[in-house]
């Protein structure tokens, strides 16, 4: 035990103790005897235990969940290799790792995916969470921005969405995000910077600026950024 401990000590702090440095011939022997580790599987990380996630289903998303169940199920089960099931009594979606789950983070991603669906995003939009790593959902309430009551609140919500939802769509297209306005709660799905831009626009709308102003500000900012970053290349290739 002492010898092993001694050797292991040597391996850890190689050059720190010159007295302990071995001769090169002996060093090679050490290298050969060094244990090789392979990356752990998710299953083994938790030492054989199975990991769970539970996502509660709000009542208004129950029927849409039923309709879109297979669309949810297919990518999770087949690509992420995670078991997914619905607990009807508790109205929760349960996620469980399997033995052959490749990645540790996949469980969390799936949970986020399902959660975003519950918030109100479409499946095709929510699927982006599975595919891209850096996407986040940013949630805030109207009262965080400005205290509004009664008709003012209703008007603010109306301003946010616009006629037929056109303002919301415009912001979505411009910032490459997806927005869900659920009464007083607002959820934004996208990358961090895009989220911020969308949030700024929405906040200005809540505070009372008209939609046209928000659009023009958008355009100006975009032009400025594009000019700064790539003055020669045209913007046409950038997709809204």
């Amino acid at each position, binding site marked *: 035990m002492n010898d092993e401990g001694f050797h292991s000590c040597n391996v850890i702090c190689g050059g720190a103790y010159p007295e302990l440095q071995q001769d090169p011939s002996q060093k090679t022997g050490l290298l050969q005897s060094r244990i090789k580790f392979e990356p752990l599987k998710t299953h083994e990380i938790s030492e054989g235990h199975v990991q769970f996630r539970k996502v509660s289903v709000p009542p208004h998303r129950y029927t849409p969940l039923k309709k879109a*169940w297979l669309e949810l199920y297919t990518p999770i089960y087949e690509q992420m290799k995670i078991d997914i*099931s*619905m607990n*009807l009594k508790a109205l929760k979606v349960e996620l469980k790792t399997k033995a052959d789950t490749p990645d540790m983070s996949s469980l969390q991603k799936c949970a986020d995916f399902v959660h975003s669906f519950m918030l109100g995003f*479409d499946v*095709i*939009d929510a*699927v*982006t969470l599975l*595919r*891209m790593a850096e996407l986040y959902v940013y949630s805030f309430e109207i009262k965080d921005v400005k205290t509004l009551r009664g008709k003012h609140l209703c008007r603010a919500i109306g301003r946010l969405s*616009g006629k037929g*939802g*056109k*303002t919301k*769509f*415009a912001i*979505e*297209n*411009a910032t*490459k*995000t*997806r927005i869900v306005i659920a009464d007083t709660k607002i959820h934004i*799905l*996208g990358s961090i910077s895009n989220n911020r831009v969308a949030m700024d626009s929405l906040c200005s709308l809540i505070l009372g600026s008209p939609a046209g102003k928000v*659009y023009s500000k*958008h*355009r100006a900012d975009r*032009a400025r950024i*594009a*000019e700064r970053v790539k003055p*020669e290349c*045209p*913007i*046409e*290739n*950038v*997709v*809204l």
Partner: protein
Amino acid sequence: MAKKEVGSVEALNKLKQTDPPLFLTPSTELSQTARKASQYLFSSLKPFCPKVYFQSLYLDGYVAEQIWQQIDLQCKPLVKKLKGEVIEFEKNPDEVLRLFGVEKKKGRGVEIEDGDEDIEDVGSDENEEEGEDEEDEEEEEGEDEEEEEGGGEGGVEDRFLKLNELEQYMEEDEAREYGGEVVKSKVSKKKKNVHEEEEEEEEDEEDEDDEDEDDELGDFGDDGEDGDDKLGNARYEDFFGGKKKKSVKRQSNIHNKPEDEEQEDDKGDHKQTKESLSTHEKELQKLHSKIEQMEKANLDPKAWTMQGEVTATKRPKNSALEVDLDFEHNVRPLPVITEEVTASLEDLIKERILEGRFDDAERAASLPSKRLKELKEMDENKSKKGLAEIYEEEYVHQTGLGTAPLSSSDQLKKEAQLLFDKLCLKLDGLSHSHFRPKPVIEDMSIQTNVPALAMEEIAPVAVSDVAMLAPEEVFAGKGDIKEEAELTQEERKRRRANKKRKYKVEASKRLVNKVQGNRLPDNSNGTKA
């Protein structure tokens, strides 16, 4: 002699009658008469002169200057003497009366005196140019006389000069100047007694002269002593006297009011101007007056123009109009348009027209065009692509794996190009003399295997998709194809048997599915279909 006299008198009269401007023009006749007259006067004045240099006025061969010098030599002392007499008469008007009272005795003297006075007038006319400088010279001469009379150091006092008398005279003079009492002492009376005893006029005059001269010298009783050194040690006081007098005056002035001072100064100046006023003194006077003026101006409140900020209430009415005000004009002064200006402008215009050189504004050349930035309008429709697809495309574009999707501008361009081609085709068709078929626009589209009838209903007459479809696409079959009518009995049977076989297989499959369908499939967890 009498004739000569008469002739001379005539000459005199003639001179008197001539206009003064005529004297300026040179005329020999006038000069002859003048010479005659002056000769006569000279000889007539001779007995009265204290000093006689010439017996008569020498005219022959002498220039006007020389004649003038002779006259001058005679007249100067005479004039002095006469002046002294006048002063004496001024002081003692009784003398005059007494003189005239003794008219009977000295009628001739009086006549002579009158004549003298006349002569004096003429002489004064002739001697107009005698300036105050000559008075100074007189003083000098007076001094010289006094010196001759004074004698040595100890001999200040004389038969003529007595210090007591001198002092008395001084007091009298001061009193006269300052408007005080005239102190008549015994001395003056004694003086008069002396005059009565001796020849009055001459001695009076001489004494007067002496006293005058003494008076002029003022407190310098010891001036005689200084004078002994004569011109070698000449001083300011010798020439201009009165220095201590002035200081005395000043001391007394301090006690008096300024008005009095001015009066006294005036008196003093007046007194001084009478006798001696050199250029230097004149300059000093001017300076002093200037200084006084300036001091006065400084003490007075300033004029409104010098007061800094002045409102309308603080200055007299309409005073701003009279003063030249200088202030900044924000407007450029308008050009004065004269005929010359217009003429020059017109010339310029003509020139330019002939040349054809008009200063037209040239349009600036536009810069090498940058790629126009597309201003994409905010798309207010729900995006058809999902978020994932958007990011996917972006990623693809960034990494350069796939081609960038057509932007809206490109699509628009394509559409425009297509329309234009069609238009051109039609227009060209108008000009073709022979028939030319339409060009084939290669366009990928899916052809559905729909019966020709349906297609023909929709498509234009000239085109039907049936023609487009290949025969294999219309019908794909293998082997020998026969219609039902062409079949033999055996072939019919064979076909029926095949049909039955296929039907049986399908039926059995269906049955199996039905049975299995009741069970839950393995995949579905908990959801009931």
